[in-house]
């Protein structure tokens, strides 16, 4: 099993993630117990989820216990700076941007804007964001990608597109 490393440093937000896992485990445990009580046998539909939830709680608790004395990177900074550290660690501008583009892309598909239009816009916006000052190339890449996707999946594989 994991053993405590001397001077081990936690990543920004790592303890929070462990707590999130523990809370998720406790919630699943609560739901599993409710299921289990309806038919309290290990072979019932609630038996196996109960075992898994207990394991999740134990493992998450173990990680939190094991990391209790570990220092967090940038722990001597104020609260605002700490939150910014977590944000920078998890969501730097490129990741945040791609996540946003993805969410808008999925919403566009969900509200039936059409695969061709949504995908073209998603690609061109993403390419232009990640490769600035190369607009002509980005447009060409978008055109080429769209053509390939339609050719391979729609006409080649006969796949129904969103």
């Amino acid at each position, binding site marked *: *099993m994991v053993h405590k490393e001397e001077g081990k440093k936690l990543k920004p937000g790592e303890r929070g993630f462990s707590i999130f896992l523990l809370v998720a485990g406790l919630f699943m445990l609560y739901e599993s117990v409710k299921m289990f009580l309806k038919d309290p046998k290990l072979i019932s539909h609630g038996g196996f989820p109960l075992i898994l939830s207990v394991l999740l709680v134990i493992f998450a608790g173990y990680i939190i216990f094991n990391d209790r004395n570990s220092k967090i990177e940038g722990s001597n900074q104020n609260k605002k700076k700490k939150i910014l550290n977590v944000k920078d660690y998890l969501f730097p501008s490129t990741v945040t941007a791609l996540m946003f583009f993805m969410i808008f892309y999925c919403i566009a598909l969900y509200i039936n804007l059409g695969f061709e239009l949504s995908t073209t816009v998603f690609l061109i916006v993403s390419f232009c964001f990640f490769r600035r000052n190369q607009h002509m190339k980005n447009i060409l890449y978008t055109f080429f990608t769209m053509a390939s996707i339609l050719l391979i999946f729609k006409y080649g594989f006969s796949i129904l597109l969103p």
Partner: protein
Amino acid sequence: MEQILSYLLMPFTEPMLTALVAVGTFAGVYVGAIPGLNATMAVSLLVSFTFGWNVNHALALMIGIYQGTVFGGSRSAILLNIPGAPAAVATVFDGYPLALKGQAGVAMGIATVHSAIGGILGVIALGIGAPVISKFALFFAPRDYLLLGCMGLMLIGSLGTYPLVKGLIAAVIGMLFKMVGMDAMTATHRFTFGNPYLLAGIDTVVALIGMLGVSEALIQIRDLDTTVIKQKISRIVPKFNLVTKNLGLTFRTSIIGIIVGALPGAGGTIAALLAYDHAKRTVKNPEVPFGEGAIEGIIAPETSNNAAVGGAFIPMLTLGIPGDAVTAVLLGALYMHGLRPGPSLMTETPHLFYLIVSCLALSCAFTLIFGLTGIRLFSKVVEIPKGILMPIIVVLSVTGVYAVNNRLFDIFWMMGFGILGYLMKRYGYPTGPMVLGLILADLIEQNFRRGIVQHKTVVGFFLSYFTHPISIVLMAMFVFSIIVQTKWYKQWRAKKDLAV
């Protein structure tokens, strides 16, 4: 025998199958060469696209991609110092230094030839070993399958660089996700919270694409810059004596690859690292020291990781337990096509087993062809900017997820899994065990419940492990696999190594 031969020749007599293996291998070699794209991601995307295909065709394409990707990873390892696929991690140690010396062609040639040799030896082991294990596996009871499933989860959680407990958490989360929906044995709702969308459960392919495709795109987009070493590559076909001189090492590292590949939950990465370590220990006087461009340092991992491909199919086809993350995805694909991998696969659909064997062999031959040609194209492919590649991965993931059930709602599930996978990776939780957990959850739960029903009580079920030689051996292996992961064993081992 005649029947087996006719099955084995299927891909050669059906041009469509040959073409699909070729296309798969070709695409796999280039996909593998691109850092950030790996076999698991490629195969999981393909599962959704080939869902409606004839199973033979779907398998031919996926096998080609799998074999090709494992080899393709060596290209960026040599040219960019970045393993294109996890299995090429050890190729970096000597491949890149050799490239820096202006011998990238030699490195790539050696990697290609030995990948093909390793691949072929792995296929031979699969062809010979699987039928034997399969006959043996017919005697397995539910308790044995339960143990094998748990062993698979334990090993994948521990053999990587991640702490065991984080691997186990990932596996448990994967299994808990699989509990959502209707219980297969009693049709009772579990974790549905009254939501009709959850009644059918979480589609494994949707989760796989999110965990492996989208999360990887998010991880890769963090670092947009890749430094490319541009150099002139003249000769790539290695000299014959260079290959024959190292035949002993080739065979030994193939065996390592086959054995490690066949261990449930292990795979090409571990095989490559062990083989590299073996080469370092056994090759006494290399022409160039290890780590500075030793040919043996390329031969060992490349032979081993490709041999592991054949090995990984052994537990998957004979026991229904995947050898690595890619075979876990392939296992899911077989289930989607209505097949049940396990000992009965060999008796019910023997043609499928031999088709897999011959497709793998064919793919090795194509690896050799595509690996020794198109060098200029390779140099271009590995340089594709991540800012272009990652949005394309997102589009392919969306297209793939929609293709499975034609439900737009699934795209949001995929996004959720992608973000969860990203967070897990950032905090050092491996996603491989979660994938295995998702795929093995049914097998583990059903055998657990069947076992208890069979032996009336939990205690009776536990005691039954000591009533049959197969169960005793498996239990001993399981206990051993736990012991070797404890810090006490690791400390004892380190002391022993130091003493030697």
